[in-house]
């Protein structure tokens, strides 16, 4: 029976290695010099260099900009849009979810389903009219426009996920608080909210990931000023003068590092988040 156990351990190890490989390979590439990147057969051992990382941040940047380089700006934009929109989505989404959980208003199920269905739409189908809308309203290449858009993207998810958390906590405590003279809003803020803290954390991190990773809309609606990292990444990859793989790998390494840390920290929220709160992890 023992060989069976060994076989299973080996199999699991091989599978884990396979799944980790693409990421590890890019990270290795980020520390390679040009000749090592193109070496045949591919090299596992080499003298590491930080040159690729230095090159990301050594381009001059646009004139009059407070950023030392263009990529510094792109990373700043990605972080700003992610945090800004997720914060707004969490504030409105939690309130909306609370309302949906506590007040059985008319057509509630229909309203919830409509909210969900906006997330099921193919993004490419929405991108054309949003592009026209933003052009008409002069929202192209603005932080405001992008923040509004990403807030709208994250809201359905936050509402569904938070509603499943609110549904789980007993409403008696809030009712008791209101009996004692606290307002509905105060009951929400002081009694219900602290009980769903972990839900908020989970919803926030998953929305952050989604915004941090978004490509299609950013590619249509941002310009030099508001460009985010994935767009710059794609441009580096599809450049006219051949791909600078070392630089690209270095950008990717910096870009996915926060994500990897999040992946390790938030295992327990992931399942619930990815299924809109319907499945508990």
């Amino acid at each position, binding site marked *: 029976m023992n060989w069976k156990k060994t076989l299973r351990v080996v199999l699991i190890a091989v599978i*884990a290695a396979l799944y980790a490989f*693409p990421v590890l390979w890019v990270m290795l590439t980020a520390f390679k010099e040009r000749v090592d990147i193109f070496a045949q057969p*591919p090299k596992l051992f080499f003298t590491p260099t930080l040159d690729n990382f230095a090159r990301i941040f050594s381009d001059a940047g646009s004139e009059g900009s407070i950023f030392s380089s263009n990529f510094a700006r792109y990373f700043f934009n990605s972080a700003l849009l992610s945090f800004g929109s997720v914060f707004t989505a969490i504030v409105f989404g939690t309130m909306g979810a609370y309302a949906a959980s506590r007040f059985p208003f008319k057509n509630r199920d229909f309203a919830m389903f409509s909210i969900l269905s906006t997330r099921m739409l193919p993004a490419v189908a929405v991108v*054309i009219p*949003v592009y026209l809308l933003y052009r008409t309203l002069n929202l192209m290449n603005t932080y405001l426009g992008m923040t*509004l858009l990403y807030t709208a993207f994250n809201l359905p998810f936050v509402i569904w996920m938070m509603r499943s958390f609110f549904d789980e906590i007993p409403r008696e405590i809030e009712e008791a608080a209101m009996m004692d003279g606290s307002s509905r809003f105060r009951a929400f803020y002081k009694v219900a909210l602290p009980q769903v803290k972990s839900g908020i954390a989970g919803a926030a991190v998953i929305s952050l990931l989604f915004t941090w990773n978004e490509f299609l809309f950013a590619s249509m609606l941002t310009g030099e000023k508001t460009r985010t990292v994935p767009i710059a990444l794609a441009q580096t990859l599809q450049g006219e003068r051949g791909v600078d793989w070392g630089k690209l790998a270095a950008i990717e390494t910096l870009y996915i590092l926060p994500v990897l840390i999040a992946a390790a920290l938030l295992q327990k929220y992931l*399942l619930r988040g990815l299924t809109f709160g319907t499945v508990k992890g």
Partner: protein
Amino acid sequence: MLAPTAVLLFGLFIFPLLWSLGLSFYRYSALRPQQAPRFVGFENYAWLLTDSSTWSRFIATGVLVAGSVGLQFLIGVSLAFLLYRDFKGRKIVLSILIAPMMMAPVAAGAFFKLIYDPTFGVLTYLTKTLLGVQVGWLEKSAPAMLGVIIADTWMWSPFVMLLTLSGLLSAPKHLLEMAQIDRAGRSLTFRYILLPHIKPLMMLAVLLRTMESFKLFDTIWIMTQGGPGDATETLALALYRVGFQYYDTGRASALAYLMLAAVIVLSNFYLRLASRASSSPEGET
């Protein structure tokens, strides 16, 4: 308290969608905003439905969806059963497996482009030395499609695994113990206790993955841009091309609505299947 949400979602999804529904009946190009849209009725739809390239987009999308959802299901469910029994280091293995689905599709596309590179890619090297064949991974039609499917499977098979595993782990312990006491064989235990428990979750996984791979854009765009030729040009890519490279806004809107119709039909089909599946087997046990 739902009002801000309603306003925002209406402004950024419902209104634009109605707008583009309207546009799908017009001849209009976003490139020439001063030229007024000209009403053409169903001409855009008629053109799309009679154009042979539309059908090859549908086929490419079908191949992609069938291939990647099928593969993700097989691998995901196998992984779940492999990781079902606890062992030392399971947490670490799970962390490694869920990392891909949290990454940007753009980043994943770039990883695989590096691996598939025809001159120095690792996979190119491996297929050449181990199998003795030079596979131009993203340069020939079939390998390019397979390459995209592999990348999508790498990202999302752990998702199927995660859902199935959570079903397996929440299967009622007392039933499993009773089955053991009654010496029910493995296949019986599986069929009557585990399967009814994980079936709805597997259905959900397949539904979500089907919808997602149907609209998959970033990964393909980064890896192949629809090429070589039009081998990996799915509906999502075609829509982007018609809308933002040819700027044929009216036709692109019509294509978007064809896609929407397809998504709705697909998901209803699944939901019907799921509700049938969940009503029958549990009744027996």
